[in-house]
């Protein structure tokens, strides 16, 4: 117990240094900051406008009104942003595999996956977080939820779970490159699928697809089930903390399985050169 607490402190200490270095790197390239502050908010503001247009043309989407959709969209963008900060490197894992960049992580006395994500922590993900939070607050107002302490705790737990689910999926996809030995960037496709399935109510899709998205690739837990529970939309889900904890549990499970898949891939790692 004391030993694992000590290990935790060690990791937190290193993380602090990594974040400090990430900020220093960001400041080294001011033109990049400007670029990302335009690019990422633009994407989500346009994306949100399009949802509004669709609602105007088609009315409610599967019984979800505009306020509820804004709430769903906002929560989805926030977990997307968090996954961009901590896990986006998973999209580019193939390049690290081919270039032999895991050498460095393997010769240091910390977890390889931890080092992979945190030495490359993407502070620019904050530019996704800002529009996400704005839309989410707007959605809270429009959908008429009461923001209580319990509500905030639920949202935070759900967001951690949702971020883990996204991160786990990126790790899964990235780890395939240990086996294929090719650098494939499925990032754009992944995001497109995620957008379609987390920014609109999943109930609009056929039952078979809902089944897959609930049990096999649990994207449904990224935003649909949490939001249904928070807004009291009937899906047979109980309100309160239960859904929040299920979301977190699903996130941890996905992360655990992804980590195991990553570790099995790492055994096949071939470095570069030779």
């Amino acid at each position, binding site marked *: 117990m004391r030993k694992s607490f000590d290990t935790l402190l060690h990791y937190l200490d290193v993380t602090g240094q990594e974040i400090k270095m990430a900020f220093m790197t960001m400041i080294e390239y001011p033109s*990049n900051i400007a670029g990302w502050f*335009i690019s990422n908010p633009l994407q989500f503001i*346009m994306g949100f406008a*399009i949802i509004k247009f*669709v609602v105007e043309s088609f009315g409610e989407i599967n019984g979800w009104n505009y306020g509820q959709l804004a709430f769903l969209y906002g929560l989805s963008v926030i977990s997307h942003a968090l996954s961009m900060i901590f896990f986006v490197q998973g999209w580019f894992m193939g390049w690290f595999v081919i270039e032999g960049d895991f050498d460095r992580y393997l010769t240091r006395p910390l977890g390889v996956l931890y080092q992979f994500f945190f030495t490359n922590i993407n502070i620019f993900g904050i530019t996704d977080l800002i529009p996400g939070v704005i839309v989410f607050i707007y959605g809270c107002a429009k959908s008429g939820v009461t923001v209580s302490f319990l509500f905030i705790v639920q949202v935070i737990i759900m967001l951690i779970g949702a971020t883990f689910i996204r991160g786990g999926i990126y790790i899964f996809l990235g780890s*395939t490159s240990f086996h294929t030995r*090719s650098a494939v960037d*499925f990032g*754009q496709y992944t995001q497109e699928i995620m957008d379609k399935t987390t920014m609109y109510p999943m109930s*609009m899709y056929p039952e078979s697809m809902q089944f897959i998205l609930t049990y096999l690739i649990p994207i449904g837990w990224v935003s649909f089930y949490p939001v249904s529970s928070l807004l009291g939309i009937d899906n047979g889900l109980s309100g309160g903390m239960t859904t929040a904890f299920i979301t977190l549990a699903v996130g941890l499970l996905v992360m655990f399985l992804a980590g195991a898949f990553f570790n099995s891939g790492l055994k096949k790692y071939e470095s570069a050169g030779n």
Partner: protein
Amino acid sequence: MKKYLYIIKTQIIKSMTYEFNVYGNIIMQTIIMITSAYFWRALYTGRSVVDGVDVGSMQTYIIISSALSVLLITNVERRIGSSVEKGSVATDMMKPINLFGMFLAEDIGSIIALIFQNMLPILLIGSLMIKLPVMADIRDLPMLVISVIESFLINWLIAALFGMMAFTTINNNALIQVKKHLIRLLSGSIIPIWFFPKSVSKVLSALPFVYIYQLPLSIYIGKGDRTEMIFQMRIQFIWLVILSALFFYAQSRITRKVMVQGG
């Protein structure tokens, strides 16, 4: 010309060797296409026609949009960016071949490979799993072919112009993302702009993006009458001219700048 054909051929072979990418891309694109098809089916529940388009045409629109997206993959912006970043741009431009011509040939080569590797499988899967995407009026075929060629060129020129911005800022990744989002959301590739409010769609009709995806797709599903299509093809052509002029202007400026400063 011969050397460009050689580059195209080399690029086709290069693209053919990444087998995992091929299968991975097909799987991902299939998931996206099927999700989109269900998405429209759900939106159309209880409605037969919205803005003059029925659900069947919308399904065709999705399948053809997925197939068309294969023709609109460019790498020129990243090639320029990395050439500038690595500082090899001056020596690259000294080569006895036009640098941008080379990038165009590479992109064409990749696309030819992708037609077989991605586009045909996608069309086949779409036909089997969603519906047979029949063209509304086969007599519009010449118009369709011309508009697709022009949309490829417009898309390529926009990519090249965004890539050239690497000469102004050091890192052009963010700009490439801006371009990607503009095309993704404003070209009608995912949601046609006729579903947008009238004022918004008017503004977007004046921009080049809708002439990349939406125009050829509209011709395919037969949205609007022929006079409207011809009118839109004229605007598409005007954009092609404007972007070409911008491209050649930017190219000459950059060449001069590189020759003077050595990158």
